[in-house]
C-alpha cells in the first residue's frame, strides 16, 4: 500500500494530510484542478468539480496529469469510477471552440465561428432550444457561425449543458494608453506577479486572493500589462476612491487620467472607476448608464469582488466578451450559487493562493479568533422565548448583555486600532456612545466617512464603530482588533470580509484579534457556529470563551 498524503474519497473530495512529508508536493499537484474547500489545521479537504476540472483544462492540464497526480499521492486505491469520471469530464472541455475566422482587411471582415472536433457534440448542442437561436448559418459539418453579440450567452448556455466551449476568438486590443507601475521602494510581491502573469497568459479570468493580499495591485499590474484604457467596476463609492488613491500612488497615472463614474460624479477618462450600483440603476425600466460600457474602446475591464457581481452586470458582461476581463475576489463561493456564470462570462480561475500560505509568507497578519458567549439575563430569555421567529435574531444579537463585554474588550486593547462591527443601527449608536467613539453607517456621507477613515488610519482616533457598509473594499490597514457584535445570518462571505479588515500586515508584526460576541442558546449562537466553521475551515483556530471568564 502506497503511503501517500492524499486520500481520495468516493464523494470526490480529497483529504490532504498536512503534516505528511510529501504534503506540499501533493498540494501543488492537485491545486490546478481541485478547489480547496476546507483548510483546518491537520487535514485539508479539496473537492473535484466539473468547473475545477475545466479550469485545469483551460490552464493547459490534461486528464492524464490529473489521474497521475491522484494515483501518485493517494494512500489507498483511487476509485475506478472517479478516474473514469475525471477523464470523461475533462474530455468535454475543448470539444467545442469559439474561433475568429477571416481577416480584418478582407471584404467580409471577420466572423465568429463555433467549431468542433466531434460532430455529434455539435449536433447535440444545436438541438438545444436555447442554443439554436444563438447560432447562425451552418458553415460545414463541424462549424456553425455565431452572432458576435451572443458570444457570452452562448458560452453560458454551453456550460449549462455540460459542453463548455474554449474561447479562442481573442480580444480587441482597445484604445492604447500608457500605464506603468512606479516601483519605487516597493515591488509586486511574487504571488502578485504570478497572478498578473497567470491572468495575462490566460486572456481573461479570475484571480483569487485573500483579503489584504493586495488585489488592487494585481489590478494595477494587469493594467500595466495591457497598456490600454481600463474600466474598473467596484462595489461602492468609497471603494472607488480607494482604488483611485492606490492607482495614483502605485502607477504612472495622474489625477487627470482617472475618472470616477458614480452616483456623485460622471467622469469618463482613460481609466474609469464605476460602481456596480450606478451601472445597475434603472430609469424608466432601462439601464440608464449602459452607454458607459461603449463610451470608450476599453482594452481591459476589471471586476472587483466578483463574488458580489449583481445579476444585471452578468448580462452586460455577456456582451463584452471581446474585451479582456479580470475578476478579483477573495472567494469563488457565491451565496447565490452562480459560480458557473463567473466561469463562462468572466473566465476560468487563473490564480489562487490559500490564505494560510500568504499568511505564512508574512504578507498578512496572523489572527487570533475568539468567540465570546454571553448569557442572556432571565428577563431577556423570557422575551426571546415568546418572540416571533423573525424577531429572534435581532433580539438575541442586540442584547445589552453584550455591552459590558464590548467595554471589557475595548479596554483590554486600549490604544490599539479597534473596529466594532455590527448590523443594527440602534445597537451601533448605543455602543458608540458607550465607547465614546464615532460611528459610520449607510447614512454617513461619503465625505464624513472619508474623514473618519483617514483619522483612523493616522491613529488620530483608535476606535470606530461601523455598520456593514465597511464590509467591502475599505482599506483600513492599521486595524488590529475587530469586535463583531451582530451580522447577517452567518454569511460566510461576510465573515471573510470582516476577517479581512484586520488581516492587513501590521508594521510591528502584531497578532490581529478577531472577537465575535454571541448570545448563548439562541439563534445568534447557531449562526455563529456557521461562521466559526468557516473560520476553522480557513485554518484559523478559534476559541470559545464564556463572558465571565474573560
Amino acid at each position, binding site marked *: 500500500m502506497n503511503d501517500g498524503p492524499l486520500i481520495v*474519497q468516493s464523494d470526490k473530495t480529497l483529504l490532504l494530510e498536512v503534516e505528511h512529508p510529501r504534503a506540499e508536493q501533493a498540494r501543488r499537484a492537485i491545486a490546478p484542478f481541485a478547489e480547496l474547500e476546507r483548510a483546518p489545521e491537520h487535514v485539508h479537504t479539496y473537492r473535484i468539480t466539473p468547473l475545477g476540472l475545466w479550469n485545469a483544462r483551460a490552464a493547459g492540464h490534461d486528464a492524464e496529469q490529473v489521474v497521475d497526480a491522484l494515483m501518485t499521492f493517494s*494512500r489507498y486505491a483511487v476509485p475506478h469510477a472517479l478516474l473514469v469520471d475525471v477523464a470523461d469530464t475533462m474530455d468535454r472541455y475543448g470539444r467545442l471552440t469559439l474561433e475568429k475566422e477571416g481577416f480584418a482587411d478582407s471584404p467580409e471582415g471577420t466572423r465568429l465561428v463555433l467549431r468542433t472536433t466531434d460532430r455529434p457534440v455539435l449536433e447535440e448542442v444545436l438541438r438545444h432550444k436555447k442554443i439554436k437561436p444563438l447560432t447562425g448559418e451552418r458553415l460545414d459539418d463541424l462549424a456553425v457561425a455565431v452572432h458576435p453579440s451572443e458570444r457570452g450567452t452562448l458560452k453560458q448556455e454551453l456550460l449549462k449543458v455540460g459542453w463548455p466551449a474554449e474561447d479562442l476568438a481573442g480580444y480587441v486590443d482597445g484604445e492604447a494608453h500608457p500605464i506603468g507601475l512606479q516601483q519605487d521602494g516597493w515591488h509586486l510581491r511574487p504571488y502578485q506577479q504570478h497572478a498578473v502573469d497567470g491572468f495575462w497568459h490566460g486572456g481573461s479570468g479570475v484571480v483569487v486572493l485573500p483579503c489584504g493580499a493586495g488585489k488592487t495591485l494585481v489590478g494595477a499590474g494587469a493594467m500595466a500589462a495591457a497598456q490600454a484604457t481600463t474600466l474598473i467596476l467596484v462595489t461602492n463609492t468609497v471603494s472607488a476612491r480607494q482604488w483611485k488613491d492606490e492607482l495614483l500612488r502605485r502607477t504612472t497615472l495622474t489625477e487627470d487620467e482617472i475618472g470616477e463614474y458614480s452616483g456623485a460624479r460622471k467622469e469618463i477618462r482613460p481609466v474609469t472607476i464605476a460602481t456596480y450600483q450606478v451601472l445597475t440603476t434603472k430609469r424608466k425600466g432601462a439601464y440608464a448608464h449602459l452607454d458607459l460600457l461603449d463610451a470608450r474602446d476599453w482594452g481591459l475591464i476589471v471586476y472587483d469582488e466578483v463574488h458580489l457581481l449583481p445579476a444585471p452586470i452578468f448580462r452586460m458582461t455577456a456582451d463584452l466578451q471581446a474585451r479582456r476581463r479580470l475578476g478579483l475576489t477573495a472567494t469563488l463561493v457565491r451565496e447565490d450559487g452562480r459560480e458557473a456564470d463567473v466561469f463562462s462570462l468572466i473566465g476560468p480561475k487563473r490564480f489562487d493562493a490559500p490564505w494560510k500560505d500568504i499568511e505564512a509568507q508574512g504578507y498578512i497578519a496572523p489572527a487570533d479568533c475568539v468567540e465570546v458567549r454571553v448569557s442572556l439575563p432571565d428577563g431577556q430569555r423570557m422575551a426571546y422565548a415568546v418572540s416571533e421567529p423573525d424577531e429572534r435574531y435581532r433580539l438575541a444579537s442586540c442584547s445589552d448583555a453584550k455591552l459590558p463585554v464590548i467595554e471589557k474588550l475595548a479596554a483590554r486593547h486600549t490604544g490599539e486600532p479597534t473596529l466594532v462591527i455590527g448590523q443594527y443601527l440602534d445597537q451601533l449608536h448605543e455602543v458608540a456612545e458607550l465607547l465614546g467613539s464615532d460611528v459610520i453607517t449607510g447614512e454617513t456621507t461619503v465625505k464624513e466617512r472619508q474623514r473618519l477613515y483617514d483619522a483612523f488610519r493616522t491613529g488620530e482616533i483608535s476606535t470606530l464603530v461601523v455598520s456593514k457598509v465597511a464590509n467591502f473594499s475599505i482599506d483600513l490597514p492599521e486595524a488590529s482588533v475587530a469586535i463583531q457584535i451582530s451580522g447577517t445570518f452567518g454569511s460566510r462571505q461576510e465573515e471573510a470580509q470582516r476577517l479581512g479588515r484586520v488581516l492587513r500586515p501590521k508594521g510591528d508584526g502584531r497578532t490581529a484579534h478577531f472577537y465575535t460576541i454571541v448570545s448563548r442558546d439562541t439563534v445568534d449562537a447557531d449562526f455563529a457556529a456557521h461562521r466559526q466553521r468557516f473560520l*476553522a475551515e480557513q485554518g484559523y483556530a478559534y476559541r470559545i470563551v464564556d463572558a465571565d471568564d474573560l
Partner: protein
Amino acid sequence: MATQSRSLADDIRGRSDAELIDLVLARPDLARPAPADLTSLAARAGTRASVQRAVEALDRGHLQVLEAVVVAGDAADRDSLLRLLGTDDAQTVDGLVQDLWRSALVWRGADGDHVVRTVPEVLGTAVAGLGAPMRELRPSARPEEADPAHIAATIAAAPDDSRAMLERMTWGPALGVLPTASAGRTTARWLIEHHLLVPVSTDRVALPREVGLLLRDGRLHRTTELTPPPIESRQVSLVDAAAGGAASECLTHVDELAAMWGAEPPRVLRAGGVAVRDLRATQTALDLDPDHTAFVVELAYAAGLVADDGEVVPVWAPTSEIDDWSSREAGHRWATLALAWLGSTRAPHLVGRRSTGAGPANALGPDVQWPAIRAIRREVLRELASLEPGGAPAPDSLRERLAWRRPNRAASLLDEAVDAVLREAEWLGVTGRAALSGAGRALLGAGTPSTPDETAAPPVDRVAGAMSPHLPSPVDHILVQADLTAVAPGPLVGGLGSFMRLAADVESRGGATVYRFTPESVRRALDAGWTAADVTETVRRSSRTPVPQPLEYLVSDVARKHGQTRIGGAAAYIRSDDASVLDTMIASRDLAPLRLRRLAPTVLVSSADPRVLVDLLRDNGFAPVHEGLDGAVVHSETPRRRAGSRRRSAGPTVSPVDRALTQALVDGLRAGEATADQRRAADEARPGPRIQAMDPIVTLSLLRDAVADRHGVWIGYSDGHGATTRHLIHPQRVEGGRVRATDESGHEKSFSVHRITGATLES
C-alpha cells in the same frame, strides 16, 4: 464408440462409463431422478424438455453446427457440413460435432451422424432463419423442383423485381406477407408460379429451405462463429489494491445499513420488499446512488444479514447473524458477502425497473428474483478469469462474448445483466479497476477446475485469505480538527468505529471517513449513556492531534443542557404545604407499599392509584382530600364507584409459519399416508373380489338384475372421506338414485348410486 447403432438408445447403450459420466455431467437433469437403466436414460435424453434445456445451454458455435447437422439431414457427410458452415476448418467442426455427440444431441449410426428426433422440434421450423423444406410446404412438389440446379436456373431466369423480393427474404424471416399493391402482387405471383415461393395462407408466402439455401450460396449463416469472439482487454495495475479499497467500502456500507435498519427498521410491504421511500431514505443516509443502494440492501439480504422479522407488523431488520458476522475479521466478512452474492438468484439491478403491467420493482421484493442472473454472474467472472491477471475487458467485447455463449437469451436483457454484474463486481471488490482481483479469482474457484458442479462453493476461508492482505489495515486513531471534524484515515477498529458513528455524523466516505461532531450527534451519545467526560476522554485518547478547545466546549455545552429537564411516570401525587407531614408519611412503615418518592420538599409521588392512596392515608390517620385535574378539591359524599374503562387486551398474535410448524404438518401428512396404506392393506385383506371402476349405467343395470334375481352383489362404495370400501349387499330396490339393500350384518341400508364405484355379482 458405437458404430453400429440404429437409435439413440443403441448409441447410449454402447457408450463407455467415462462417456456416460460426461453425458450426465453435461446434462445434469438426466440424473434427477435417477433413471433405472440405460434405456430409460436414453428415453429421458430424448424428451423434449431435456433436449430444450440442452439446446438452450449451447453456445453459438455449437448451435450453428447443430443447425447445420439438422439442415444437412441424416447421415450427412462432413463435406456438406463444412459447405453449410462456410468453413474449411474440419478439425474445429469435428470437435464441435463430437461435443454434440457427447451430450447426446447427436447419435452415431452405421451410416453417419443423426440428430436426436426432438432436436428439430426444439429448434422449430425456422432453423437458422430458413423456411421449411419444399416437400413439407408442398407435398405435391415434384422432386426435381427441390433440385438446386433446377432452382438456380429458375432464379437466373427471374425478372429483376422478383429477384429483389427473394433477396429481401434471404436471411430470414422466411415468411413474408404478400404485398397489397398490384405491382407487388404480380412480382410475387411470378415467384409462386415458379415455385420459388409457396403460399401458406391467403396473404402469406414462405421461402422453401432449398431456395433459401441457394440464395445464401449454400451457407447456413451469414457469419459463421464457431469459435468465441476475442475479448479485448488492457492491462491495468494495482488491481488488488483497488479491489481491497472497494471491498472495505462495501463492508462499511453494510455496517451502516445494519446500524440504520437496526435503529429504524423499514416496514415490509404487503407485496414484500422495501418501500421506495424507505429505500430513498437509506440511500440518503448511505450517500450512494440508487442502484448502488439497492445493491447494498440486496447483498445484505442475500448474506442473511437482514431479513423480514416475521412479526405482526413485519419490518426488515438485521438478523442475529449480523452480530457473529460483525465480530469476524474483515476478510472473512467480505468472503461471506462475496459468496452470498455469487450464489444469489436475485438481480439488484432490476430494482426500480418497471415490469410489464406493474409498478417499479421494490428492493427485496419478489420482482427482483431472477434465477438466470446467477449463471450470468458466473459466466462473466469466468470470462474475466480467462484473461491474463490484470486484464480489464472492454465491456463491448465482453458483452459480445456473453452473447456468443448464450445465443438463446434476449440480447438487451443479457447486455443489461452483464453491465450490472460488472458494476456490482466493482462495488464489491471482486474486480478492481475492471480486472478480476486475486480474491475474485479465489471466489470463482478458478484454481480448481475439477469442481464443475456449480453449487460447490469455494471455502469461505480461502476467499477470505485471498482478500485479507489487500484490505486497508484498520486504524485505531482519528485526527480531530478545529472545524469539529474528525478524520479517520482508514477503516476504524470496531469499538472506535461504533463510538464515532454514535457521537458524530459521517460526512464523507471512501478510503477515509470524515466525521463531524454536531450538538445533535453529541446529544445522541449522551442519550446512549455516555457522559461528557467519557466522550471527551475517548476522543482525546483516540486522537493523534490535540483536541481543539471548541470541541471540548461543544461537548460540555451540550452536556450542560442534557437532562436539565426530567420526565418520569407517576400515578398520584401528594402535596402539602406542611413539609413535616410529608416527612412523617415517608417515614411511616405502613405506607411503605405505596413507594412514596419525594420530588420537592412539599411534593411526593406514588405509583399507586389516587383512590388507594386516599384510603390508605385515611386508614393511617391522615386526612387527605382528593384533587381534580384542575387542582380543585373533589368532594365525594357517598362513594360512587365506577369501573375503570376496560383495558383493551393486546390483539391476538399469529404464530408465523416456520420450520417447526411445517415439520409438524408434514409429519401429519406422513402419518395420514401411513394410515391410508394400512386401511388399504386391511381392505385388501377382506374377503371378496376386486371391483373394477365401471360406468354407472353398467352398474345400475347390474344392480337391477341383482334385485330381480335376489342375488348378492359386491359393490365398491366411497364413504364421506373419499375412501372406497367393499361391501357385500343384497339389493331390494333401486329407485331415485338410491339402492335399498341389506348388508353383511343383515341391517337394511340405503346406498347412493353415484357413490358406487363398481359392482360385481357374488360368485
